[in-house]
């Protein structure tokens, strides 16, 4: 965690340092008569960057401008709402700045509504119910079989089939790249997280052990029947807080090479697919091979981002099923392992950078938890420390001269 803080502050500190260096150089020029004569070098130069600058009333300008710049636009808050499109895709939900332009456009839009809600939606909902229903029924049946190769084989086929039906239900057009890097047993698959659909997209191309909290209702039913057919890792709500328990169960699972690779989303929350935010280090501490996967949606046909503060799950699924299509690309990146001398956080950042690069996403160090929570005070304290260091040097000179 110290490293993350360090990195974050390196970024803001870079701005700060270039300003501070400028200030120091200027300060050295102004004050050479009192402070720096005793320290000037023989060749007459009296620029000494070890000696910091003195406080000036104009120092406030730096913080002021940084602050107002972040008010005008910042890197973080815009990651938690759907990406803005450059041109309208005839969905009112993507209509932010486009107002009534012409009758023809409105007619086109109306036609789009009829097609989407009258034709596509009912078709997709039927498919979705079929897919989910089959999943529950078939996995329960398979649960009665004795453990063994037959059971695993059938379980895989059933899972794949049902997920593929669900993919059709969303009309998801997926392009898989580099399938030779697909995750293998005993590994952990990590991917950037945009919506619950990510799971369906990945699981329709390969078999994974899911990790998650047990829910009630329909989700709970699906989860319970899935785990009858093959081992998934579901946690009770109370168990989720116990990090050691979670880590133990995950490592036990990966050690058993007959079990499927685990699928984890280390950001911990849905981000809007324009950036990758901080990866939580838990999955990277376990020590098995990590298979990174980058998922990039094309927002022009339907934005897949789930803004959970805006809509619930059902509402979200309805929106997905009434978009034109979900178009996305999946890249299977080469497997990575933790290197000598690298700790979990550095490893996590390395994986994150690889995923961001492949998916064309912005690599951010900010925590996705900022969607709901406040930023830690420690970051502000780091800024204060940096500024103090700049001033304190002056005071030490004063006491010496």
């Amino acid at each position, binding site marked *: 965690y110290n490293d993350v803080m360090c990195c974050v502050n390196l970024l*803001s500190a870079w701005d700060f340092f270039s300003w501070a260096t400028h200030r120091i150089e200027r300060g050295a020029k102004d004050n050479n008569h009192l402070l720096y004569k005793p320290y000037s070098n023989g060749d007459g130069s009296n620029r000494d960057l070890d000696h910091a600058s*003195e*406080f*000036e*009333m*104009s*120092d*406030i*300008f*730096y*913080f*002021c*401008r*940084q*602050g*107002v*710049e*972040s*008010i*005008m*636009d*910042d*890197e*973080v*808050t*815009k990651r938690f*709402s*759907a990406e803005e499109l450059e041109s309208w895709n005839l969905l*009112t*939900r*993507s*209509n*932010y*700045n486009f*107002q009534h332009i012409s009758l023809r456009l409105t007619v086109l839009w109306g036609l789009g509504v009829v097609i989407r809600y009258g034709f596509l939606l009912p078709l997709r909902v039927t498919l979705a119910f079929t897919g989910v229903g089959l999943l529950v029924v078939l996995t329960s049946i398979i649960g009665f079989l004795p453990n063994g190769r037959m059971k695993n084989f059938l379980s895989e086929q059933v899972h794949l089939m049902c997920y593929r039906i669900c993919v059709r239900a969303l009309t998801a057009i997926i392009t898989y790249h580099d399938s030779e890097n697909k995750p293998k047993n005993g590994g952990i698959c990590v991917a950037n997280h945009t919506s619950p659909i990510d799971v369906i997209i990945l699981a329709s191309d390969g078999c994974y052990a899911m990790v998650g909290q047990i829910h009630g209702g329909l989700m709970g039913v699906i989860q319970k029947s899935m785990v009858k057919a093959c081992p998934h890792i579901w946690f009770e709500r109370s168990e989720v807080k116990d990090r050691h328990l979670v880590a133990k169960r995950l490592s036990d699972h990966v050690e058993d090479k007959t079990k499927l690779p685990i699928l984890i989303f280390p950001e911990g929350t849905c981000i809007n697919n324009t950036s990758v935010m901080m990866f939580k280090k838990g999955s990277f501490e376990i020590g098995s091979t990590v298979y990174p996967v980058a998922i990039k949606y094309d927002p022009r046909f339907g934005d897949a981002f789930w803004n959970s503060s*805006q809509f619930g799950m059902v509402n979200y699924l309805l929106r997905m099923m009434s978009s034109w299509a979900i178009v996305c690309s999946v890249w299977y990146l080469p497997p990575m392992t933790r290197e000598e001398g690298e700790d979990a956080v550095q490893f996590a950042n390395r994986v994150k950078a690889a995923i961001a690069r492949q998916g064309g996403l912005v690599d951010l160090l*900010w925590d996705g938890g*900022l969607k709901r929570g*406040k*930023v830690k005070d420690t*970051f*502000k*304290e*780091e*800024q*204060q*420390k940096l*500024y*103090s*260091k700049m*001033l*304190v040097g002056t*005071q030490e000179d004063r006491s010496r001269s």
Partner: protein
Amino acid sequence: MGSRASTLLREEEIEEIKKETGFSHSQITRLYSRFTSLDKGENGTLSREDFQRIPELAINPLGDRIINAFFPEGEDQVNFRGFMRTLAHFRPIEDNEKNKDPIASEPLNSRSNKLLFAFRLYDLDRDDKISRDELLQVLRMMVGVNISDEQLGSIADRTIQEADQNGDNSISFNEFIKVLEKVDVEQKMSIRFLH
């Protein structure tokens, strides 16, 4: 439904804001977009919490002072006009404005108004003077716990000594302007934003 504010910005309002602040049409619509995305309560105004939700602002040592600058005396909500009026201070000074008609009212982004904005960041009780106490408090915000009271006190004393001309042991706005007369305020307090 993608819920942007239910009241879209009308053309007349855009024109009025353009005249008052000098921002261009596209800048105003962009900032309106930004305003509505910050307005979680969707009531057309921003509260202090809405600003504090911006992480980069929350970690700024002077974040609270800057947020305060947006709110008129005693109020807890700022509307879009107020928001734009405050942001206008940071508009860069264009060359063609420098030779404008001197009788016309001073633009919000003039050197003098930029300095006034900064002055008000120091002047906590808005009595048009920066007292030693106020200077200490603002310094404390900027350095956190890393500098002792005595050191900070001597920094404050030196600063006031250098600036104070009428001997009242505080810095008035004119004294503030004098201290900063060599500083390139136009460049330091301007933000290039769209066109």
